[in-house]
């Protein structure tokens, strides 16, 4: 098979089995590997600059793949981030030697965005210190490689908490700010990237710059939700809040449409502090609603609870028993639901996280459950982010795709409150261009469950989901979301070319995270 060289900033032809899966449009998503030209000179330059570079199996093997587990690649060497100055030296050397630099935080991408296909892998988790907590101003300044969980640990010692962060302990702050970050309180507080007040950024040419909405705002706009194209976030100042446990309530539906309508009704009326949908296929649809205070919950009970069309756990069990009693040929599906309930539900009610009926450390509870019951060595989680009015159609169409490709799957849906003053941040990001007030996101996660699927099967599934996004004029959120092959189809050539031109000015050798978008 002949491989064609691919110029950075262009999308090459798919080199894999071009005649496979006929009728399914495919484009390259795994980039061509950098060929290593000038590596030894680059290593010598780093050595002269005092930047420690690790090579070899032990150093590089940790980074062979990302959370997705479908893209594999090895860097030539690894640098563990220790300071902005060190990163500046690295990027200056990389520019002059034209060596690609792939930045990795928690490595929770699913399309290989944080996998280095040659060149240097920069592991940001080496910069994991909390620099300053200002309890009076409710802000924290932290190095950006820190995991949200580690940040939460330090904030809790001051009885504080972050505002919103992915329900995953091992997402890094910097990586999240670069892609969005969704929490079950995002319908009220916005995405994690909206919580950043200012950033320290090392530009692709090695300048160390502080930026915010008032200081270097153009850089701030491009770096926030910028997929790591315009700089490396080395420190961030974030808004924080007093810590509160939460009262969690669950409502169960057998209809996706009804559950989503109720979710959007709650969000539009600010009826809860947390809201989201988690499903077992489209059979058991769980609308979770939670509150930071008894007062907020009391208002919910008084005004909104009666308008929800979901059942309690017992009522839904009766409803399901009746449903499957009339459809005995679906007994396998019923058994699966029962098994899943037995496995997953106790995780959300572990006594050591519950006090007086309230859940403490929700991110730990959710994240441990996510990894235990949804995680595996391969995670395929295509997603769609749409405006509120397109969301039901997007989820229903995505659900049909899931049904077609996999026996079992989960859907996870949340709202994202948009901040009008952050509109410039949202350009060419996970936030769909036509969303007003709220955007809505849905992840489509098949349960691999030890099954063996081909890469083509996964790719065809993802393409089928992403094609819905193209058709609806949507976007994609979390986990680095956007596949390189889809960015022009989603946003159009004019917008992408404008950003590409900005990228070329900021990063003349196109070294920084070169294969993620352009």
């Amino acid at each position: 098979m002949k491989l064609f060289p691919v110029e950075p900033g262009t999308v090459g032809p798919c080199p894999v089995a071009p005649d496979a899966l006929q009728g399914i449009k495919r484009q390259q998503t795994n980039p061509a590997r950098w060929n290593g030209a000038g590596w030894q000179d680059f290593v010598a330059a780093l050595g002269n600059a005092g930047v420690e570079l690790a090579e070899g199996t032990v150093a590089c093997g940790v980074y062979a793949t990302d959370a997705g587990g479908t893209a594999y690649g090895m860097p030539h060497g690894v640098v563990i981030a220790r300071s902005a100055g060190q990163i500046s030296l690295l990027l200056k050397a990389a520019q002059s030697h034209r060596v690609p630099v792939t930045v990795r935080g928690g490595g929770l991408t699913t399309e290989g965005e944080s996998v280095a296909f040659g060149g240097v892998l920069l592991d940001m988790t080496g910069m994991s210190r909390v620099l300053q907590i200002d309890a009076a101003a409710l802000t924290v300044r932290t190095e950006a490689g820190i995991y949200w969980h580690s940040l939460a640990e330090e904030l809790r010692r001051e009885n504080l908490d972050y505002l919103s962060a992915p329900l995953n302990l091992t997402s890094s702050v910097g990586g999240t700010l670069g892609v969005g970050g969704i929490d079950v309180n995002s319908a009220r507080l916005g995405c994690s990237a909206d919580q950043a007040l200012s950033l320290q950024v090392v530009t692709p040419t090695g300048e160390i710059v502080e930026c915010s909405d008032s200081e270097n705002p153009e850089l701030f706009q491009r770096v926030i939700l910028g997929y790591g194209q315009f700089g490396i976030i080395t420190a961030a100042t974030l808004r924080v809040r007093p810590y509160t446990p939460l009262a969690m309530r669950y409502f169960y539906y057998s209809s996706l449409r009804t559950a989503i309508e109720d979710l959007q009704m709650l969000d539009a009326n600010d009826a809860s502090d947390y809201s989201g949908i988690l499903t077992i296929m489209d059979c058991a649809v769980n609308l979770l609603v939670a509150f930071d205070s008894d007062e907020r919950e009391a208002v919910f009970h008084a005004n909104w609870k009666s308008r929800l069309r979901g059942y309690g756990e017992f009522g839904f069990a009766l409803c399901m028993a009746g449903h499957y009693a009339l459809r005995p040929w679906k007994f396998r599906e019923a058994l699966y639901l029962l098994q899943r309930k037995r496995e997953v539900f106790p995780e959300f009610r572990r006594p050591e996280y519950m006090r007086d009926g309230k859940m403490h450390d929700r991110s730990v509870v959710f994240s441990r459950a996510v990894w235990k019951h949804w995680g595996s060595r391969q995670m395929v989680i295509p997603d769609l982010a749409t405006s509120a009015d397109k969301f039901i159609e997007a989820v229903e169409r995505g659900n049909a795709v899931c049904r077609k490709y996999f026996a079992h799957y989960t859907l996870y849906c949340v709202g994202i409150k948009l901040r009008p003053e952050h509109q410039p941040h949202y350009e060419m990001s996970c936030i769909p261009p036509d969303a007003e007030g709220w955007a809505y996101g849905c992840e489509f996660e098949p349960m691999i469950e030890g099954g063996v699927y081909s890469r083509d099967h996964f790719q065809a599934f993802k393409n089928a989901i992403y094609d819905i996004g193209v058709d609806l004029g949507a976007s994609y959120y979390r986990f680095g979301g956007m596949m390189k092959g889809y960015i022009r189809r989603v946003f159009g050539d004019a917008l992408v070319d404008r950003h590409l031109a900005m990228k070329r000015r900021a990063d003349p050798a196109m070294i920084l995270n070169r294969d993620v978008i352009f």
Partner: protein
Amino acid sequence: MPAFLARAPAAPRDYAACSGCSLCLLVCPMWRGSHDPRLTPEGLAKGLQSGATVRELAAPIVACSLCGACDPVCPERIDLSGLIMDLRLRSANSLPPNSPQPAVIVELSARLHQAAGAAPAAGVVSRSAPVLLPGPELRADPALLARVQALLGLAVFDDDGADIALALELGVEIPQQRLHGFLDSLRGHTIVAADGLLLRQLRRWLPGSQRMGLGPALSTRAAVRSNLVPSDLYVIEPRAFHGDYERMVGYYDRLQRETGCSLSLDLQRIAIPAASSGLAQKLGLAAGDDVQAKWMLQGRKPARIVVESLADRAAFERVCDLPVVHLAELGEDPQMMQKFRHAFG
């Protein structure tokens, strides 16, 4: 009920199952000290997946303190501390013959072989009676040991397996004869062990036996429990805790609810090891550090620190001026542990 609906505990898996989720890294004292992913259980597993040799992985194998914090958080149920102990053993066995060994290891090997050839210890304690395996640190403090015995009403077992515990720690081969002799002498007894690593292994070696760590044994005593107060920071011995996590996390949660004391747990309800020392520290080749003890105190203002382990007491005495007391020093209770089995199942 169909078999697949039953929630039977699944068997541990090996490094090949590592998905790279990094949950082990968050609780790892090696990580907290270095922020270097190579020095983590995940780094080890990924290194092995990539074909690294035991020798290439020497740094994390040596640095690990075997606190076991990584075991209960692994969603893939990989026996990570068991993996590291196994690698230590393989690392020692892969050395060329006649290569120089630290004196501690030479002496320990000789002791193990000597014990393997010796007759089993005479049965001074009747079968089924609870026995105490105090370990060398508690033996070195006779006054405290006497207090522990008085509180628990237990006889000290002559052969407390200190050499076996040290061999597990250092990666020294345990002669089968020695191990079987030790385990045979314990069969039928309820065991209270001060050494968390030994307790963890006894759980595997003697699966039907009744075992518990010194901390839970003492803290079930009314005289001790009633003296725990909300201003105390209670420092859990991490190895015993993580080795029997599902049971212990519930036990300490109840202890916290009843006494109001704060516990040395992180947000994942994992015990932070106060005195974390790797192989080099155990062999006396490097000094320990107090990063963990300092981190445990950051942002906390306890009036007193209560420890289950003497090593933890030493660590806190180095980093703060607060009173640090061993759990056994909280109360004196001459009664025998009449409710021992009922209290702990």
